[in-house]
């Protein structure tokens, strides 16, 4: 079945190439047909790959360069359930974005379709790839298409500014990843993830490996918008067109965290497996700070898309904290939070986009409020299941302090969303700088796409059997030795027992946190703006730091790298 694997990557790229070739000689509807056909095919094949990956590890060596006696020099695609799920998600979100854009983006430029198809192909390549340098190339391709899409509205300085900040910060991150890859190649002579991991597992770690780990992790975290590498995100999300925000929030930013987890569990787990608690705690602390900063800044915003942007930062923090548990439950919780959060936040971004073309739509207020509540995560709605698994993972590590902080952060972001949603949908107060009422868009179509996404996101917690399959997928993701056996030796997977199809049972503490968060979020959201005198200096300082100069953002990257690198260098020697 290995021929299946390149399809979700090749077909959208072919559609993009065909669109570029036919650029001036064919009508616009043909371009939409080609792109929708390409992404639809990719979607179908990615579902087939996901189903296949549950029972075996589909493996494709490009050019037939198979490994000989456990040594590989070719480039491979190797898919496990979490990667398969990510590919399905990106294809689904791209389809939704394209359907939405049919009537929302009325520019004559074909480049929009080309860029969307490129993003879909590149994310599929990113999650499938088993070669570290190949992952870097897909990362850069995702980046370039993302920067161009963010700055698509070139008439407005704000859009260009957001795209420039996005581009410069992520490019610096990409260079850090490349420096780390170079150091790993110097140490091991291999670029295949499984091969590097196997080579590093023999001996104790050297300083070069610690530096490589710092650089690669920081590079991916720049893409993932984790504090202090997150400053580009609000600038970019506030100005990108709504369907582009759907893709960015839904899967592109989470891809950075996928990269960190993938490289840790296949490569760095080998030399540092003994100190994994230290590395995991670094991730956990960074995730907590990110979640709280995101939640706090969300409350300080008035622009709907900026509130959503900071809510994304908050949830990235929660997901990263889940990854930082470095356990099956933590990874499964992070994956399910990505799914629920991606669909719901994507739907909310699409709703915010509708406000640009039709400012008075009070009948969409219930959809927005349901989405905002789903992000807070009351029992069995939306991101509840992900948060519940992360809580279970924390309890497994005998920790009880991350849970209330993560729930609090989610509450703050949810409260901000509820408050601004009431302002925008119910009371019809808008910042007028984005209104373009003259555009004749098919609002029922836009509303349908947005509602479908929000409902799908809310339903994530209610799918029976999803938790068990996510946990099985997370187990395979973490299994470094098994991954190396399957990729380098082609060994078949051990047969897994049949997984039950039941709803997950969460602990009473989690249910209590969830209900408490819902009450608090609704209370703050409906209560409106109150200025707490004591918090003013901190709020002003936080807001000043997030002011838009890109030189400051890069300075934060350097400082963050130095702090993380210094801490790891001292503690991991």
């Amino acid at each position: 079945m290995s021929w299946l694997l390149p399809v979700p990557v090749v077909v959208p790229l072919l559609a993009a190439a065909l669109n570029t070739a036919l650029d001036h000689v064919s009508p616009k509807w043909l371009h939409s047909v080609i792109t929708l056909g390409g992404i639809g095919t990719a979607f179908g094949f990615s579902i087939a790959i996901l189903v296949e990956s549950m029972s075996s590890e589909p493996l494709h060596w490009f050019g037939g360069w198979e490994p000989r006696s456990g040594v590989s020099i070719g480039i491979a695609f190797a898919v496990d359930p979490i990667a398969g799920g990510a590919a399905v998600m990106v294809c689904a979100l791209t389809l939704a974005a394209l359907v939405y854009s049919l009537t929302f983006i009325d520019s004559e430029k074909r480049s929009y379709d080309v860029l969307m198809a490129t993003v879909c192909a590149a994310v599929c390549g990113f999650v499938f790839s088993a070669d570290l340098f190949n992952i870097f190339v897909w990362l850069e391709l995702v980046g370039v298409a993302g920067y161009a899409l963010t700055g698509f509205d070139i008439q407005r300085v704000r859009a260009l500014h957001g795209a420039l900040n996005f581009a410069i910060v992520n490019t610096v991150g990409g260079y850090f990843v490349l420096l780390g890859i170079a150091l790993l190649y110097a140490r091991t002579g291999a670029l295949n993830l499984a091969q590097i991991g196997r080579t590093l597992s023999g001996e104790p770690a050297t300083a070069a490996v610690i530096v490589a780990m710092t650089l690669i992790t920081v590079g991916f975290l720049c893409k993932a918008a984790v504090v202090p590498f997150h400053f580009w995100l609000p600038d970019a999300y506030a100005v990108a067109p709504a369907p582009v925000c759907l893709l960015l929030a839904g899967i592109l930013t989470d891809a950075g965290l996928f990269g960190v987890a993938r490289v840790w569990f296949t490569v760095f787990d080998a030399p540092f497996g003994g100190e994994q608690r230290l590395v995991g705690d670094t991730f956990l602390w960074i995730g907590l700070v990110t979640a709280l900063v995101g939640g706090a800044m969300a409350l300080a915003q008035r622009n709907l898309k900026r509130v959503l942007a900071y809510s994304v930062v908050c949830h990235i923090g929660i997901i990263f904290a889940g990854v930082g548990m470095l356990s099956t439950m933590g990874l499964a919780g992070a994956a399910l939070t990505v799914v629920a959060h991606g669909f719901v936040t994507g739907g909310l971004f699409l709703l915010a986009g509708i406000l640009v073309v039709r400012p008075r739509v009070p009948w969409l207020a219930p959809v927005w409020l349901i989405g905002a509540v789903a992000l807070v995560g009351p029992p069995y709605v939306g991101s509840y299941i992900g948060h519940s698994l992360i809580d279970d993972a924390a309890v497994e590590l005998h920790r009880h302090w991350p849970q209330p902080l993560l729930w609090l952060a989610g509450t703050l972001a949810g409260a901000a969303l509820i408050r601004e949603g009431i302002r925008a949908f119910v009371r019809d107060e808008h910042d007028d700088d984005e209104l373009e009422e003259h555009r004749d868009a098919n609002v029922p179509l836009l509303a349908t796409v947005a509602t479908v996404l929000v409902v799908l996101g809310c339903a994530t917690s209610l799918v029976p059997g999803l938790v068990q399959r996510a946990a099985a997928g997370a187990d395979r993701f973490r299994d470094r030795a098994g991954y190396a056996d399957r990729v380098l030796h082609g060994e078949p997977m051990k047969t897994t027992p049949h997984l039950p199809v039941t709803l997950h049972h969460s602990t009473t503490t989690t249910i209590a946190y969830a209900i408490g968060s819902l009450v608090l979020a609704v209370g703050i959201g409906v209560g409106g703006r109150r200025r707490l005198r004591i918090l003013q200096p901190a709020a002003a300082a936080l807001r000043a730091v997030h002011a838009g100069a890109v030189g400051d953002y890069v300075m934060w990257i350097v400082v963050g790298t130095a702090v993380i690198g210094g801490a790891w260098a001292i503690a991991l020697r």
Partner: protein
Amino acid sequence: MSVLPYLVAAWICVVGLYGVVTSKHLVHLALCLTVTQSSTYVLLLAIGYVEGGGPPVFKGVKLGTTAVDPVVQALTLTDIVVSLTVLALILALALDVHKRAETMDPDEIAEIAS
């Protein structure tokens, strides 16, 4: 094994980042990104270098001749292509900003955009 190429790579990276942080002109900023990128080239090529090795051409050459590592050269070429695309995009965005805002200073653009 000489440490000099690695020190040079580290210095170029830091100098490039310093340029990005203190830049007052978007084109200067884009070129400082190119400087940072050059540090990755120096590092990759230094890693692949073999003392006394010839170019990695193996046709018609005696078995056992030392040659430098061709893989890092391929990585460098890929890196050049990828970064060229990003640089072109950043310069195009900078030109558009100049058309709309009449300035190329990142701080002033941040002021206008907020």
